[in-house]
């Protein structure tokens, strides 16, 4: 029988970090945190868990991406154009603002990706999973993981081109 207090104490920090980084909101992160552990509890009733951190990170990433998608859908419907302008006036100093803008854009683009590509991408670059670990966790082949990653990066590259340094853009133009 699983000692959930121990699991929470041991891996609560990992889960929190994963969900908080992606959703960038304490209340949403708290929801995702609880849902992650409930999903882990359901999983553990069906199968024995060999790798708690791997399982929790995967579940947390999936919940956080779901939350991001939900938020994106709500934002598109509810936020009028002038609201964005108003919000932009509350942004911190220029450098931090630019970084936050990049991260928000990145989150939005991750939410817009197909779920399998987004999940693979997050596990690879945000959780530092190896291809093999991703394949094990998601039940995919390593080749399939590579394909999904490639597609995700291609999609993100186009979306994030505006954030590329000037020199980089210049080289592309020159070439």
């Amino acid at each position, binding site marked *: 029988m699983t000692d959930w*207090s121990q699991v929470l104490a041991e891996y*609560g920090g990992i889960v929190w970090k994963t969900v908080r*980084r992606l959703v960038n909101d304490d209340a949403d992160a708290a929801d995702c945190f609880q849902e992650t552990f409930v999903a882990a509890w359901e999983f553990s009733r069906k199968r024995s868990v060999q790798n708690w951190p791997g399982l929790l990170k995967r579940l947390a990433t999936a919940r956080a991406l779901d939350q991001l998608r939900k938020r994106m859908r709500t934002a598109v419907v509810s936020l009028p154009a002038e609201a964005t302008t108003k919000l932009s006036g509350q942004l911190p100093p220029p450098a931090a603002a630019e970084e936050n803008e*990049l991260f928000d854009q*990145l989150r939005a683009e991750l939410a817009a990706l197909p779920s399998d590509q987004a999940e693979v991408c997050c596990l690879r670059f945000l959780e530092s999973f190896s291809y093999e670990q991703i394949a094990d966790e998601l039940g995919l082949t390593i080749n399939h993981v590579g394909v999904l990653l490639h597609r995700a990066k291609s999609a993100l590259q186009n979306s994030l*081109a505006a954030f590329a340094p000037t020199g980089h853009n210049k080289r592309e133009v020159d070439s």
Partner: protein
Amino acid sequence: MIDSNKSDLVEQALESLRDAPIPAAPPAQLLSETAERLRSLEAQANSYTQGPRRKMVSQVAPYCRATAICAVVVGAIVWMGLIDHSTVIAFANVQSQLKKVKAVQYVEIRIEDEEWNKAHAQQRDLKINTGDIFFPRRHFVLAPYGHRTETLDPSGQVQSVHIADWQTGTSVMLHPKEKRCMIFESQVTIHAKTGQQTETKIKPTLYNNLYAEIHEIPPGATTQLPAKFLDGKRAVGFLWEQKIVKQAGTDTWKRTYWIDPDTRRPVRIEISQRSTDKRVGPSDWVQRDFVFDADLSPALFHTKPPEGYATETNKILGIKSE
């Protein structure tokens, strides 16, 4: 923020997000709420899986399943007749059991082959002139020699009565409606080629005497058949096949005795006759409704003509072709 030396913009952006400072620990309240929720889920699940009722059901369930499976398998085996009582019943047991029977009565029905009758109508009329053989017959046998056969008309009334005493070889045929009695004292066999006549005492034949029929079957001559249900009761079958080779053809008689495995007495007898002689049509009989050791009056088996009956004496004629 983005290192221009790094060629992959996406990787850089994601790594930046990964390394962005985030509060490492979840709020304490969230941890306690989550722990409480998990405990509640665990308790709910345990109360279902380990509650007294569920526990009892889970303990009993495997036995119930095993019992049900066994019952189904045993039922199927019994139904398919794989447990065959014939393995413990030899036909000799049936014969010996019948020797203990003092009286038996049964009904015999002849099953007609309409097609053959139509095709051989003229021949048949010549061959059978009494016609009474086609109606149901009630047989009464009083061990060991008395045999009474009542032939019924289509309305169920007794048309004729044949009484045979197999000890004396005497038999009488009564026609109650006409109050006529035919006494057969002997049988005359005429040899077809030589014309020689042989007069002998009337003997029981395999066809018309149950005792003779069953007792004369040689040991080991029967074949066991798969059991089947007759009138809702299981019966074990024994087949006796007999070939009688004659000059005009070969007659094949098949007798199937369906035996009650408990009483070891017949519940149904099926008789069929087929012949390669084209003049002989297919015939089938079924004997059923057996009653053993019924209280049969000896008066039913008297071969003296009843009072008031006109009597005539006759001989049973038979032609022997070989």
